[in-house]
């Protein structure tokens, strides 16, 4: 899957999870920048991403993702 396609799909998932249609993603975006992105919504988000891209994360991988850029990188390595 192309990087732009991943970013587009991911943006949809984010907008739906955080209920914010104006939310845009950038590589250096972190949980601190988004309203309501806490440890509760985080796991809902992860579940939704797995459904959208039909992939599975490992718990260890989650600990290593600190920014949206890391997340996109991880998704890319799993879909292609």
């Amino acid at each position, binding site marked *: 899957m192309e990087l732009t396609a991943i970013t587009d799909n991911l943006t949809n998932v984010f907008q739906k999870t955080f*209920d914010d249609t104006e939310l845009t993603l950038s590589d250096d975006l972190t949980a601190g920048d988004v*309203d*309501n992105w*806490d*440890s*509760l*919504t985080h*796991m*809902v988000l*992860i*579940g939704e991403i*797995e459904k959208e891209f039909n992939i599975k994360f490992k*718990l*260890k991988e*989650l*600990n290593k993702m600190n920014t949206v850029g890391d997340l996109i990188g991880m998704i890319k390595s799993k879909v292609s």
Partner: protein
Amino acid sequence: MVFTSLNFLIFFPAVILLFYLTPSRFRWLTLLISSYFFYLNIEPVFGILTAAITISTYIFTRLIDRAEKDSKKSVLMYINVIIILLPLFFFKYFSALNDGVFTILEAYNIRWALPKITFLLPVGISYYTFMAIGYTVDVYNEEMKAEKNIGIVALFISFFPLILSGPIERATNMIPQFKSELKLNPSNFKTGLQLILWGYFMKLVVADRLAIYIDVVYGNLEYHNGNSILLASILYPIQIYGDLGGYSLIAIGVSKVLGLNVMPNFERPFFATSMAVFWRRWHISLIKWLTDYVYTPLAFTYRKYGIWGIVLALMITFVLSGIWHAATLSFLVWGFLQGIFLSIEALLNKRRSRFVKKYKLMTSTIYIFLSIFFTYILFAVSEVFIRAETIEDAILVFKKIAFERGVIFLDLTTLAYGFIGSIILFMSEFREEYFPKKLLFFKNGNVLVRFASYLFVSLLILWIGILNGGQFIYFKF
């Protein structure tokens, strides 16, 4: 040896002096010896426990590092976690289990009476057990390499400022610091002493003073009316905050003087506008620990159930948190309540955000005030179960608050002094929360203002502090 004891006021300067006299590459050893001296002074036999936990953790973390297959690493990790949890279970839950079995046996009249054995709970055990577990899991998760010097691991588990009540620190933060070149420096000294002074203020002026009123009321619930019980219940969260918050500041300050940075344990919790925010500001080190090692793995396992999976993980985590404090029905109820509050909030989160956006409440003073007020009340309600100790007493408290009016019991000196302390604490936190750069006292650039503030707080401690007061509440956990 307690932070508020005279012994500590001799011990700590002695440690600083020894630390200063030791060549910097052996300073960790000075800290280790001081830590064991500190802990053995409480009860010599407890030292065996910290040493055993250290040895087990040292061996298993090294083995985890060396193992190649993930399955083997995971087995080793679980074995160590179980080994170090055994003493905690034994000391903390043995009597609860024992009493439970006896009650059942007695109910069927088959109890064979033997002398009852009770064990003294090794103070601090819940804290250093959690720190050792965290370290083991971090090595398993490859967040850090296993430490090769057993002395450093021993220091991490026994470090005297933290051993009795936390903050529950992480090996990833502490071990590299213990291994670095440890130095005394004036700026750390200053910041550390400021934290210690404020910590003593919170404990001696606020917590121990309020405790007098609360203990009188809660100690005789039958004789007090609903109004007095309501006042005591409203004040109790402030007492607990002064107690554990004050303790934490002293622990962080003592570490800071020695050049070590320890994570904060509280961040103005009573300005939280929701329970979720509250739990990010209250007993932070415990909640972070639970989030990383209990909640996240659980929520990850249940993630396919969406928000309901989160709710389940939350409930289990907070019930465990309750039981971590003590194996009583009251703490179980307390844990359930926190789980329920947070779950309801999580389920209503989207609606609340939309509501706030629609009516532009983000900056509304009334909305913020009401949110803070309700969060405080919810927490105070849950704390009734802890202060009342038994469920029957907690129910009595709520019944009396709801139905029994009367003349409020006023112990004027205690309340007046308690309010002076609480209001100064509140104003200081209010300033820090909303105007962090303004009206500085301890951090003022002017040396006169700084010293006047130190003098003022010191005098307050001597004037209205309870200097012969009791233990820190969280030692018993």
